[in-house]
């Protein structure tokens, strides 16, 4: 325990926490995206899938146990990701009390320079998203247990679709830099693997953006009703 605390105290320890929790989030959004595509199977298929998520593991464990395990892991991961990010950001700001008059960059790109702001945006979206589809209090016609209805009714509103598209774009940008960073940060990168991880980042960013965008766009365009 003391060793873990000591590790966390170092900037690299915090980075490792960012990487590992980021990896958890990365894995989760991939599964989430695949699950979303079930919406094309129609109301029955989609609601059945939602039901499956609630009851998976039965009867070995009571209903919703695994769902809650996943939720707790995610909650811890997101919290740790956010807390480390705040601490590292603060360290970064403190490490340069006086900035430059002229700022230019050679290697940095939009994704790497907006990682933190993108993270803030994603965090705010996450709260909205939970209120929208999990708690329902941000959803005008929320019906507990009818996930298909909740999705379809929400995405008939172009404004909502716009918010979701922006959010998944932000996710794509975040992962464009974030996925490669995971491997760099936990030390699994070198000159031979660099192209592999860079490629995975690009594929992940585009794939998740497209995968997540399909559902709201399909609903809005009437492909899914």
């Amino acid at each position, binding site marked *: 325990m003391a*060793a873990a605390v*000591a*590790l966390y*105290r*170092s*900037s*690299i*320890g*915090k*980075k*490792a926490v960012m990487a590992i929790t980021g990896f958890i989030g990365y894995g989760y959004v991939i599964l989430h995206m695949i699950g979303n595509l079930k919406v094309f199977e129609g109301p029955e298929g989609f609601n059945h899938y939602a039901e499956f998520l609630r009851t998976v593991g039965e009867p070995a464990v009571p209903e919703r146990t695994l769902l809650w395990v996943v939720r707790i892991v995610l909650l811890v991961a997101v919290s740790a990701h956010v807390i480390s990010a705040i601490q*590292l950001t603060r*360290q*970064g*700001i*403190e*490490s*340069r*009390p*006086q*900035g*430059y*008059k*002229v*700022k*230019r*960059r*050679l*290697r*940095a790109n939009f994704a*790497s*320079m907006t*990682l*933190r702001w993108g993270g803030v945006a994603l965090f705010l979206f996450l709260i909205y998203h939970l209120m929208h589809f999990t708690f329902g209090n941000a959803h005008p016609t929320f019906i507990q247990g009818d996930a298909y209805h909740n999705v379809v009714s929400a995405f008939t509103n172009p404004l909502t679709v716009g918010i979701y598209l922006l959010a998944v774009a932000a996710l794509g940008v975040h992962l464009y*830099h974030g996925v*490669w*960073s995971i*491997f*760099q*940060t*936990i*030390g*699994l*990168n*070198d*000159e031979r693997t*660099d192209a592999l991880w860079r490629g995975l980042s690009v594929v992940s960013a585009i794939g998740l953006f497209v995968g997540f965008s399909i559902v709201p766009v399909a609903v809005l365009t009437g492909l899914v009703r």
Partner: protein
Amino acid sequence: MNLTLQVWRQKNAATPGKYVTYQLADVSPDMSFLEMLDVLNQELILKGEEPIAFDHDCREGICGACGVVINGLAHGGQRGTTACQLHMRHFKDGETLTLEPWRAKAFPVIKDLIVDRSALDRIIQAGGYVSVSAGGVPDANTIAVPKENAEKAMDAAACIGCGACVAACPNASAMLFTGAKIAHLGLLPQGQIERGRRVIHMVEQMDEEGFGGCTNIGECTAVCPKEIPLDVIARMNRDLLVAKITGAS
């Protein structure tokens, strides 16, 4: 060439600084950047003003003493080039150049463009060595090193400790510097015994000096005059995690 220079002038660490504008005429494109500053300084001296203080020594790109942020880029942004090896033909006639010191909490300004980089020395002192005393070592050829490892170690060892990586990093992180030494010694058999201990102590010292964390942006390697690759940081991260997990101290 005619140039306008906006230069950070600061009398000492305790006095606040400001940008001062100078006009410089008849700059030869064959001058190095520092020779251009020499010419300006000669003019200032004869006018009875204090010349601009800047660090420099070998002027052939190897000692690591010089370092100026020129128009927002450490060492001026020419690939693999220190400020002393940057030549004025790299700039355009009539251009305005803004000259700033390395800016980081761990590098306090001493005067004008001179900063205190002793934090980098202290990182090395914390463990950037093989603890071998003079004498009593085996014949050199009893230690074989695979050529590939020797080459990679040399890539990392090429670091000149100029601090441009810190200056360019949006977080003022010293991870490229620290990672370079850890990679150099970690790639060689001679460095294995103290590998865990070394990385733990050096990273501890790096944090203590007030450098920022790494967000993997890569500005450090882009401005590095010796083009130290970014994977030295990955190697350092791995070494630290392994050392912590295996309980090295």
